[in-house]
């Protein structure tokens, strides 16, 4: 598996898109810090961007890579390698190279602007950890979708739809249900609803850490009341891990049974 990972990673590190992605984050980091030299505030702005954008990039990259490397996958399938190693290797290759672009792209400007001398180090680290999680989750989801759909256009469509649902529509529905059922106790409902969406989960996680009650919103407040800050952090991290592992498990399971 490590060999496949190495080569997928190597292949991606040379593709133009990894650099575009890296440069985009680099530019974003510098522009944000240029406009707003307060690191903590920049972290919040960055969070709002990362939470929507990282899943989108993960989804698109995952689907694109999977379909583009179809013939290569077939070549690998004929080699003496376990199936699960092939798919895990490719998945981790995509996930790691995207994560690396994110870490370096955002890390460099923040370090230059004196990250280590400020008190925002932990907040920033948490933000990056979250970005890494979101990348891994959405890459895994998109690999799953691509594996289940032979038709590229369909696969692409479904993947974008999943992103749209989780990033935009889910929040809308969530808010609407809160308004419609406002007479009922909604604590448990909103807790569960947050856990069921990795994007909401990351947002809550970061806001809990930043401890900005004004931005926490209803779910965040419930989260904080229910778990307290530390326990809330742990639980949301755990849920994010689950969100990563479940799609990976399905990926391996499905890959073993598929015809190529």
């Amino acid at each position: 598996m490590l060999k496949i990972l190495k080569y997928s990673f190597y292949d991606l590190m040379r593709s133009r898109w990894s650099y575009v992605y890296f440069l985009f984050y680099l530019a974003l980091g510098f522009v944000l810090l240029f406009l707003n030299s307060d690191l903590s505030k920049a972290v919040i702005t960055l969070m709002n961007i990362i939470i929507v954008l990282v899943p989108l990039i993960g989804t698109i990259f995952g689907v694109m890579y999977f379909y583009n490397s179809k013939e290569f996958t077939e070549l690998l399938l004929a080699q003496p390698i376990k199936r699960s190693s092939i798919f895990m290797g490719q998945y981790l290759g995509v996930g790691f190279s995207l994560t690396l672009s994110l870490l370096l792209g955002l890390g460099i400007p923040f370090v230059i602007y004196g990250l280590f001398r400020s008190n925002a180090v932990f907040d920033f680290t948490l933000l990056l950890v979250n970005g890494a999680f979101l990348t891994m989750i959405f890459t895994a989801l998109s690999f799953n979708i691509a594996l289940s759909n032979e038709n590229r256009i369909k696969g692409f469509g479904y993947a974008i739809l999943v992103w749209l649902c989780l990033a935009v529509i889910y929040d809308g529905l969530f808010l609407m249900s809160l308004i419609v059922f406002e007479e009922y106790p909604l604590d448990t409902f909103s807790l569960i609803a947050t856990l069921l969406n990795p994007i909401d989960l990351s947002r809550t996680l970061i806001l809990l850490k930043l401890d900005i009650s004004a931005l926490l919103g209803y779910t965040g407040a419930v989260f904080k009341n229910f778990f307290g800050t530390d326990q809330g952090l742990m639980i949301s991290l755990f849920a994010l891990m689950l969100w990563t592992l479940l799609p990976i498990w399905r990926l391996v399971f499905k890959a073993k049974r598929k015809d190529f």
Partner: protein
Amino acid sequence: MIAITNLKKSFGRNEVLKGLDLEIKPKGIIAILGPNGSGKTTLIKSILGMVIPDEGSISISGKDIKNKWAYRKEIEYLPQIANFPGNLKVRELIHMIKDLHQRPTNDEQLIDLFGLKPFLEKKFSTLSGGTKQKVNILLTFMFDKPLIILDEPTTGLDPRALIHLKELIQYEKANGKTILVTSHIMHFVEEIADEIIYLLDGRIYFKGSVKDLMEKTKQKNVEHAIAAIANNTDHA
């Protein structure tokens, strides 16, 4: 070498292999022929474990291959379409496949034979179709393994490369290898094949030597013989 019993596979409602039985003995060149959609590629991919059969069993050298992967250490496979990661250079690609196998290779010799030296430092995606196929052939033949499976090996090759390919196949045969090959180029098949397997509708319609085929169909060359089989079944 390969024993297949009652192999069945369907894709959705399309039944491709309908209870195929086949035994392939070691040594020699076996051509698998058949019209488009007769199940040639599905058969090959089942042997390679890329397609998972619905029913039936396949064993190679006496061992069942279901859910196994280590047996592929003994198989060289040339896929129909050569498409590898485009960002890698040819040299890196060769290095990678070697790295995956951890076996001695004779890649230097093959690079010379197919004149691939000027392309080693080029990215794979920038190569022409024929050159890609040469790289594909190189990657397949550089190992020394007892079973070789070639899916349409002649695609895109120029006459010189084609001659080299035939020599290579003959050389491997002389070394006692078993070679399975599919092709639609009947002259090629006639020249190299010791035995012909003709697939039709997911079953084996004919299995025997080139001579047997000529006698059975009363034709002078393989192309006409195969056409005669196809015509016969059309009328039937």
